[in-house]
């Protein structure tokens, strides 16, 4: 497996994904803020949370890139379109399971069942993360496809 490629390009792909999400936020397309979601596991201060979350996201991005690299190695090929397919599977998992399930474990995320005594303040993402804006699934899909394409183009399958 291409360990060096994984180490370098995993970071590059995650950076590309994060950058695209930030651009989409700035353009008013989505309120999905993965560094904030991750960082608020550790702190309530949104500014600090984004810093911690950014590095956590890089770490998770690297872990997912390992999965992509293994997939390429098993199939013996790495192309942009195979990376895009992996990206689609990845975003499908993120939108239907990873992010919507966060309210069950996130100490500061509210839940659809929150009531009188709930003091959690971070809005729950909802199905397909639609609570963070109607275009969120589209933005997340494009970002993950780009993540996959970057890895498909740059990681050596052998």
């Amino acid at each position: 497996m291409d360990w060096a490629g994984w180490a370098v390009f995993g970071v590059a792909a995650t950076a590309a994904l994060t950058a695209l999400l930030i651009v989409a936020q700035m353009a008013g397309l989505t309120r999905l803020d993965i560094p904030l979601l991750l960082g608020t596991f550790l702190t309530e201060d949104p500014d600090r949370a984004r810093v911690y979350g950014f590095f956590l996201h890089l770490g998770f991005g690297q872990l997912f890139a390992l999965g992509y690299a293994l997939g390429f190695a098993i199939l013996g090929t790495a192309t942009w379109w195979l990376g895009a397919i992996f990206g689609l599977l990845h975003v499908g998992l993120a939108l239907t399971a990873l992010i919507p399930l966060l309210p069950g474990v996130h100490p500061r995320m509210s839940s659809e069942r929150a009531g009188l005594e709930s003091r959690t303040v971070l809005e729950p993402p909802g199905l397909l993360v639609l609570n963070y804006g109607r275009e969120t699934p589209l933005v997340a899909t494009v970002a993950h496809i780009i993540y996959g394409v970057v890895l498909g183009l740059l990681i050596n399958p052998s």
Partner: protein
Amino acid sequence: MTRIEEYALLGDTRSAALVSPYGSIDWWCLPRFDGEPVCGRLLGKEDAGQLVIGPVLPMDVIERDYLPGAPVLRTTWRSPTGQLTLTEGMVSSVIGRLMPSTLMVRRIEAVGGPARVQVRFAPRQEWRGDRLRLQYAEGRVIARLGGLAVAMLSDPPIRLENQESLKIDVRPSEPLTLAVTAAWREPLVYVSPQRAWQELCEDADRWRAWSQDVPADVPFRSAVQRTLLVLRLLTYSPSGAPIGAVTTSLPEEIGGVRNWDYRLTWPRDAGIGVAAFLGLGKTAEARMFFHWLLHASRLDRPRLPALFTLAGRRVPHEQLLDDWPGYQESRPVRTGNAARNQHQLDGYGWLVDAMSIYAERQGPIRGEAWRAVSRFVDYVAKRWPDPDAGIWEERHSPAQHTHSKLMAWLALDRALRLAETHRTRQTKIGRWRDARDAIATEVRSRGFNSDLGSYTRTYGSNDVDGSLLVLPLLGLEPPDSPRVTGTIDAVCQQLSAGGPFLYRYPPGTDGLPGGEGAFLPCSFWLVQALARTGQAERALSVMQGLLDLAPLGLFSEEIDPTTGRLLGNFPQALTHASMLQAVLALRDAGIHE
């Protein structure tokens, strides 16, 4: 037909129901406040849905009130053999346990002798395009409506066989308890009626603990406690967003067209409510709202939308539901709200004011929150000269509303106060100060009518506006200034609807056919204005007159001043928030009942 003021509110901070004095749930939207009604009898035909438990024959209501400090309603009827009592509520705290997200509990018991009772389970026949399917068993009936399921369990078990009323005898010491649960896109969780009752009692204890810490020096303390409960019930806990009201399209005139959807969040109304929460020491609720607003407004900053959905999404387009007859034939019934795209300047003022109160009490606001406030205020400094739709969301052309300018002044003034303790560039402070001073100069010249001795509704107008009653609270003019007292007098004179009631603007000037009632928040603003200008006795008298209107402590938006019937969506957050603000003004002025 049940009058609006006869309805009582049951809620769990995620959804809410309106129950009539005869035990009929006539309004209940699921899975949350802004969902479709499962019980829509309030606005719909026979098949629009209702759940009933109550006396078969008409009986006099001898007592109807909430249990102290809790949103649990108790209704007692006089039966031929004694009394019949219905105790009901919804369970709010369900997190962390295998409990249904929605659980309504209703227990009816006879005292003195047996009483004939009817039970009816007839949800709406069609919900989001899915036909109702019912499944009956001993002690249980389940309604399935696409992804939604509603179950009613009974103890002792009763067997319903259709959607007609089942009539049974309830004997003393053998109460009938119903647990109504609902599930949306998840399995139903069955709760035995006995456990549901226990859960309701424990939930009531939690509510009592929450509401009992209202400061002792607050006048009308029990009414304040009740109003706080209402405002909390109207706050959607999963996001922290307060809704305008539980209903859509309750008319501002019986048979009229002013029927709007209020199951949405207005940052303006929320700002008023948050300031009231803060005034009463409820900082956690204020914090929840600010977090939600910061998150919700991200896509639109620096513009602050006039309204949001509960999840902070853009509000859907307004739709007319032609097949709904409306409350007492008041058509159209609307969903969504066309004010979604309006430019409303006043919302910024309420919000920044609430933020400054929060910062005063809780210390500096955090970086992101301050950056958001700062961008809102930059926007106000730039856009304040533009005409806007105003606080009343008028649908004709935008105008130069004096109240909007006053609130823009408030936003800039409070932001300048905040800037003293928050890092802000001097150029920005200079820009805000220039804009604030320019607004003051312009409003004093163009928004004031010397002949009337009053500020006016719009620049150059001869009309006044109920919203100008906030003038003494702002600090633009000293409270004892002739301009302030003159405005209060002119509003009371021009807009009086008799007694403590005021129209919000001169009737018939909003471009819509028909009329409307007196606007209750204006009356509470009058109390505030009177308290701030040293007219204690009059303030108390108006306040007492208003509180007497609502024995259950529930206010709608308007009232018919001739019949005393409440009008408009119910219960309405703005009215309740204004009531709390009025009480705080009385307290601050050292006025007690």
